[in-house]
């Protein structure tokens, strides 16, 4: 896993981040085009709700535009953006507590080959449900953003040790829930 990358479609990220930071909307649009799906994915892992995931990703872009100046190293753009999206998803998830009854996935395969995939998705959805939002954020940032414990700790306000401990337990819980023993 590689968290950061110095290029976007062969173009140095710094060449996009710098103008975006200076207010170049076109450069910012190209960043959005590249990374929006990543933000939605990590927000989905955190929230388990497609609507919240998209809302969180969109909110993350508002924050990103405002705080691009805080990004020290353009190569860290992707994990930085995904951290914002994960935190936004956590905020929206806990503020949306009254929407506590989540829509459960319904197994409705149309072909046998899709059946196992659908079942797997349901298993994962149910497995993720046993974790709290913070642990889901840790998983998303580790496995989707490729961040290490120190970076995750800074992003979510925990010590690296606490991140490692919680990640290990969350991973183990998923492993048990998914029957991968």
């Amino acid at each position: 896993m590689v968290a950061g990358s110095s290029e976007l479609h062969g173009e140095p990220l710094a060449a996009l981040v710098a103008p975006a930071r200076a207010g170049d909307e076109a450069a910012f649009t190209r960043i959005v085009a590249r990374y929006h799906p990543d933000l939605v994915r990590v927000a989905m892992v955190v929230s388990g709700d497609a609507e919240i995931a998209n809302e969180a990703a969109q909110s993350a872009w508002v924050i990103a535009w405002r705080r691009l100046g805080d990004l020290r190293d353009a190569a860290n753009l992707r994990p930085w953006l995904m951290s914002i999206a994960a935190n936004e998803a956590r905020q929206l998830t806990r503020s949306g507590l009254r929407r506590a009854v989540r829509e459960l996935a319904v197994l409705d395969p149309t072909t046998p080959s899709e059946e196992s995939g659908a079942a797997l998705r349901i298993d994962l959805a149910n497995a993720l449900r046993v974790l709290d939002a913070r642990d889901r954020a840790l998983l998303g940032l580790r496995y989707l953003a490729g961040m290490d414990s120190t970076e995750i700790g800074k992003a979510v306000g925990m010590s690296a040790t606490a991140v490692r401990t919680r990640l290990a337990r969350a991973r183990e819980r998923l492993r048990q829930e998914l029957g991968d023993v």
Partner: protein
Amino acid sequence: MSEQPLEPFDARLVDLLTRYGDRAVDSFEPSVIARGAVLARRQHGARIGLLISRRARLVLFAAVLVLLALGAALLAGVHRPSPIGDVFASPREIAWSPNGATLAFVVEVADSGSFGAAPSVVGTSDRPVPPARVWHDELWVVAGDGGEPRKLMALGSMATPQGLAWTPDSRSLVLGLAPTGATGGMGEIVQLGLDGAPARTLLSTGDRTPDLDGISPVADHLVYDLARTQGADLYILDLRSGASTRITTSQGASFDSWSTDGRWILYDDVAGGSQGNPASIAWVVSADGSTRHELGPCCGVGWSADASRVFFVDQGGALYSEAVDGSAPPADASGWAGISWTAASPGVFMAGTGMGVATFRQGETARIVPGTVGDGVGDAPLAMSPDGSWLAFSGGRNRILGTYLIPSAGGTPLRVGPDTSGGAFQWRPGGDPEFTFVSDRAILSVRADGTAAREIVTRTAIAGDPLGGADSADTSRIIIGPSGPDRDTYRVTGMTWPAVTIENRSTVPWVPWGITEKNPECQLVSGLGGSDPCTVEPGSAVRFMTEGPQFPGVNLEVWLGPAGSDPKTAIPVLVDFEATP
């Protein structure tokens, strides 16, 4: 961040999580999203919203000035201790001394002058926002039964204590320090006495950060870890000789606990073991590192009361009890699929079952006592009282998220405060069970039965008095003073679209999170779902409509913070809706 080959399960997780996340990825138009983000920022400064009129604001300002003058006159000559930090100081770590006599706590304080200086302009916005703040941590102590807090140490700018532990004699504290200017660029583990003597360096770790894991109950060794590229390795420091022994090399080890007699250390490690390649293996190692014994695939470990046996849960969910030296085979008490354990007190454990909390007593058949399941919120164990009679858990009841206490033998959960699962909490050692936690920038303690709740360190002692007086009379009006909201719980009545008013009496703009979803003005501002909040300007009041109470007693959590602050550090308040449809 460096690449290394993934274990098969990790690779599977990457694939599964990616495909799971893909379910939410719709087609999108980048230019629309980018435009929305840009517009949200530009319109932010032009928002008028439901602000009260300029004339009314002037009247309000004048009234506030008169009140402040009156208050100052009344308070003249009255001793008011200076708060520990500035108006946004926040406690975030606590540690009771083993004898329960002293509470140590860490306060995050903004460096002087870093807030309220000349405003800066960010991006293309014409709206000035507060500059980023520079923070440092301070270590304080206070007598457990009350008194004036006393500062032991101010850490360097942006420095954070890496683990905080008392020595068993309750006379000093030990903590890890990251390499900063304040430590001469050296990572250190230091010991601080309560007598005010200078810190004593126990260990220097060069340019690496030591994280203190725990001190032996007999004070002859401590365990720390040094973070490496992918994880951490554990070390034992002999406090008599000063020698360190590295006990793991996998970069994936995690300390669990000392045995109560100080002879053994329990930890888990992703590497080694004789049973293939499981996720983690539980190990016991002697305090001097000379003897090691593999327990098996784990995790979730805890000690028996006499420290002779170790409990752990294998990957299949079976509970084992095994002699610490490996002399007796493990005993199986199966039936605990999918749980993780928190060793809370000798012989008594509790387990999070994902959607509930269970307790188990050594010697009894494994059974759930009493199984707590929140309504829509997965209960999670926090800590069990030292005598094992009570447990604290984080969860929801009647749709109210919070920290609850419940007798371990069963009973009705009692909500004692907001959710503290991400914050600081601890049971006070000795005496009647007393649960201590951080809430609303104060350090509170409450007896397990809910009686005798008290503030060990008040919010005003830490961050000043928000209003200089009592809470406002109107329970649906959130009044923000220089130190934040005037109360932590508000109550609103109304049939549909009940409203809460936020009045800002501070000198900087404040923003709420959590109540903007049904406010068209905020959505208009952000254009992107209302997550970018409305701003309540100084001297103004904003009336927010809220989602109507579809259920009696429905509850909403709102976070408030200065504009430009991080929502993670915002102050949570609770809004209870008392109306029925």
